[in-house]
């Protein structure tokens, strides 16, 4: 019978018995147990962990994981019209090439010397976003767009010293859940229902919601959860400012080659998710958040996030980087800082920076035009399907758009039937007869026609 091969794990060099022994000898310790002397016996685990049999070799591990991955069917294999907070876009090869570099992928929190590259890439990310957003301050990414919105609202509350937060446009119920949790201590969150027929903000109701005069922020989205570019976005800013509230706008940065940056129509704080900017969807792992403001000392003081700044060095003509106003962070002063800061989503920021560098002003305009055109075309095609109504036909949508089923089909049934025909699509909305579809630059006319034809087939 073959003897068991000695097991030295490739991830653990000093498990070689002679090395282990020589190190213990060097310290003068008899056993590794000596180092655990402070852990009381009563709480020691007296048995091995009950874990599956390990797959020691890379070959075995790969085979096992491959078996699991084979039970996924990706958007490369199916035609997907899913959006609603996570978007299928083409990720340029250069973005992957850069973010997969070991130097970036495995770095963490070095100083601005040995990690100069990370600081420059993230400062450039801040700067590229700033050009897109027309703001002078953008943070190092926070976890995701939900967190960015929640923090932007708390920043507004701190900056104004007020506590009411009013939501004016359609918002993802999951995002609302996150925001409601996050602003619970000491804030009042008011959601003004949108016009049920069109999904547009109800300006009269918003005005009423701001009547109390104690409103810290009015929050709107462009596009809204249902993909609507509400034509009243600029008026909402005026309403907010007339009530001495800050205007906080969540936006999809990918739309800003064709749509005005929110700061241009009055936003005091802009926030959102950068996943559309060259970051793979990864089943929801690609989200990352941004917050942007004008360069106002009082607003800058309210950011919890890292803000990298460009500075000269001791050598003439050389530049370096550092943290701007570090003293406001929880790293500096624990609970006395603004909210908290920690590891979040920096590499996604680098990805977005590479993406914007590749896109340039032309690329951003063109992708916006293609998405607007595809969205309009898809809305038109789906409106022609019997049993489907596309609300508010004159409205402008970006990527996401809702449809309503007028026949006997439910939203869930439509999704199931589409999947049977190789199509992913339709995010069911609160109304069980309404669904959200999404198109981007990756969709061709043939794809959209196929969706419309398939829905026609299902409706019959």
């Amino acid at each position, binding site marked *: 019978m073959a003897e068991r091969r000695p097991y030295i794990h490739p991830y653990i060099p000093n498990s070689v018995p002679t090395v282990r022994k020589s190190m213990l000898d060097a310290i003068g310790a008899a056993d*590794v147990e000596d180092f655990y002397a402070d852990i009381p016996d009563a709480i020691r685990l007296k048995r091995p962990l009950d874990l599956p049999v390990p797959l020691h070799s890379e070959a075995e591990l790969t085979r096992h994981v491959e078996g699991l991955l084979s039970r996924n069917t990706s958007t490369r294999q199916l035609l997907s019209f899913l959006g609603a907070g996570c978007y299928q876009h083409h990720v340029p090869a250069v973005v992957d090439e850069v973010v997969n570099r070991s130097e970036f992928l495995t770095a963490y929190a070095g100083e601005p010397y040995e990690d*100069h590259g990370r600081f420059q890439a993230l*400062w450039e990310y801040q700067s590229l976003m700033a050009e897109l957003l027309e703001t002078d301050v953008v943070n190092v990414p926070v976890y995701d767009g939900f967190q960015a919105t929640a923090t932007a609202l708390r920043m507004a509350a701190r900056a104004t010293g007020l506590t009411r937060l009013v939501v004016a446009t359609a918002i993802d119920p999951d995002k609302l859940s996150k925001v409601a949790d996050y602003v619970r201590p000491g804030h009042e969150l008011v959601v003004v229902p949108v016009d049920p027929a069109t999904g547009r903000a109800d300006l009269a109701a918003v005005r009423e919601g701001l009547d109390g005069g104690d409103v810290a922020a009015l929050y709107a989205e462009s596009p809204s959860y249902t993909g609507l570019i509400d034509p009243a976005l600029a008026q909402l800013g005026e309403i907010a400012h007339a009530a001495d509230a800050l205007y906080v706008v969540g936006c999809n940065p990918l739309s800003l080659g064709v749509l005005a940056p929110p700061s241009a129509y009055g936003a005091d704080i802009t926030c959102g998710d950068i996943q559309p900017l060259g970051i793979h969807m990864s089943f929801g792992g690609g989200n990352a958040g941004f917050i942007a403001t004008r360069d106002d000392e009082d607003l800058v003081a309210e950011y919890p996030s890292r803000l990298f700044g460009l500075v000269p060095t001791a050598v003439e003509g050389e530049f370096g980087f550092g943290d701007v106003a570090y003293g406001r962070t929880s790293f500096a002063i624990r609970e006395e800082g603004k909210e908290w800061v920690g590891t979040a989503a920096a590499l996604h920021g680098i990805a977005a920076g590479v993406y914007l560098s590749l896109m340039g002003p032309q690329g951003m305009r063109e992708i916006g035009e293609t998405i607007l055109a595809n969205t309009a075309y898809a809305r038109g095609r789906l409106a022609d399907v019997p049993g489907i109504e596309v609300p508010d036909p004159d409205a402008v949508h970006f990527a996401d758009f809702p449809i309503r089923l007028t026949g006997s089909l439910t939203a869930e049934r439509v999704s199931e039937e589409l999947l049977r025909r190789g199509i992913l699509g339709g995010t069911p909305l609160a109304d069980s007869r309404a669904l959200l579809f999404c198109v981007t630059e990756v969709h061709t006319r043939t794809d959209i026609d196929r969706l419309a034809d398939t829905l026609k087939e299902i409706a019959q």
Partner: protein
Amino acid sequence: MSAARPSVPVSPKDARIAVKPRLRRFHQARWDEKLIFELGSPGERGVLIPAPDPQVAAEVGDPAAALPTALRRTVPPALPELSQNQVLRHYLRLSQENLGADLNIDVGQGTCTMKYSPKVNDQFVRDPRIAELHPRQHEDTVQGVLEIVHRLEGLLAEISGMDRVTLQPGAGSAAIYTNVAMIRAYFAAKGDPERDEIITTIFSHPSNAACAKTAGFKVITLHPDADGYPDIEALKAAVGPRTAALLITNPEDTGIYNPRIEEFVRIVHEAGGLCSYDQANANGILGITRARDAGFDLCHFNLHKTFSTPHACGGPAAGACGVTEELAPFLPRPTVAYDGSRYTLDDDRPDSVGKMRPFYGVVPNLVRAYAWIMALGAEGLREAAEIAVLNNNYLMHQVLKIRGVSMPYAAGRPRVEQARYSWEQLHADTGLHSEDLGLRAADFGTHYWTSHHPYVVPEPMTLEPTESYSRADLDEYAAILAEVAREAYEDPETVRTAPHRSTVHRVKEDSLEDPATWAVTWRAYRRKVLGA
């Protein structure tokens, strides 16, 4: 006939490959790379975009024309315009000016568990069957990834001893916040909302204090006693009817394990509070002791630390929270359910704290952490822990031989997976600060981190060697520190003005604090400094 070559005398000794010096003659890449805004020229393109289909364009015209002028972009964003290979070259140069963990003996980033992130796990997550999955896909099309999430929850439940696990938090601090949110929801559900105080320790990560405060709690911070352990008398004085929870790390960031942890937990429980274990420092105790065994109600792991996922310049990371059955109703939604044949997402959880982030977590890192645990198994996890602790105590043994360094607290006691040292003596002798020494270390191709603020340990340095480094690596690292300390005594100016062989020299930090000069973006820099 060829010209005679100039004659260089060669001794037999020179003809051999020179023996390498004990310390590297390192120099980091210094490309003197411009800012991206100074590169390229108008009209260049990095990528091309599919144009609308002609028939589509003809049918829809310019949809934006229907928008009010104020909502249309009239001035293009002032983004740079570069050809594709210039963009690539720029960012590759920046990458070379960055010292990833894969390239250095990264034991100096204490508290961060800079272990090796296996490359094979990166391959898994680049597969389109992870990277190109939409989170709203029909459950039937994502059974594989749901299975991975569900299995990983089970593995971490066993490793922590907890009943249920969520993998939704985006990183460690988000996991702390998630635990605090669950604690708040628990007392609200019990009709006990008066519990508005959270107790933590100064050697626990600042996010314990900061997340508690953000969630509306008053924070009480325990300081160490003379031996460096959290002060149990201070804890007894702090607990009461307003105590919601204790948030504590063990071993703390000093590497000291608090042997009275069960007593801490009991004191808080007796006062009616919950106990939440920040397991950022779990790497040395995998398979040795578990959160549940010490009586904790909640815990969290940083998957980018203990479970090997890459640190990615500061995220994306991943956090995991474990809870007892009693707290399970409050877990973020959805949870992954399994009926023996099919995995589903359970969103119908009325007592849930709700969403902590979009969708289900940083899925690529969940896949990596799953693969890492599967590659090691129970025996391997324990081996990782033991070797991490051996490495730490070995490095300590080497470092404490260096002039000017000491290790405050718990004299003569071992440390678990990391150690916090002090250069107080060296500072007294030379006037140099710990930061200066860390920057000089960059000249030898590595670095170290001091500690979180406030510096309770004066002139701190926190080293955590993990299980990933060989004895030779640790010897090299200790030799670098010894050389830097020697220079501090013999040639302090070299240390004071370091780094010399890094990408850039010391920055002038003053402008970072002054609103008139700080420049968070190129736009701000243009306006403030260039006057454009």
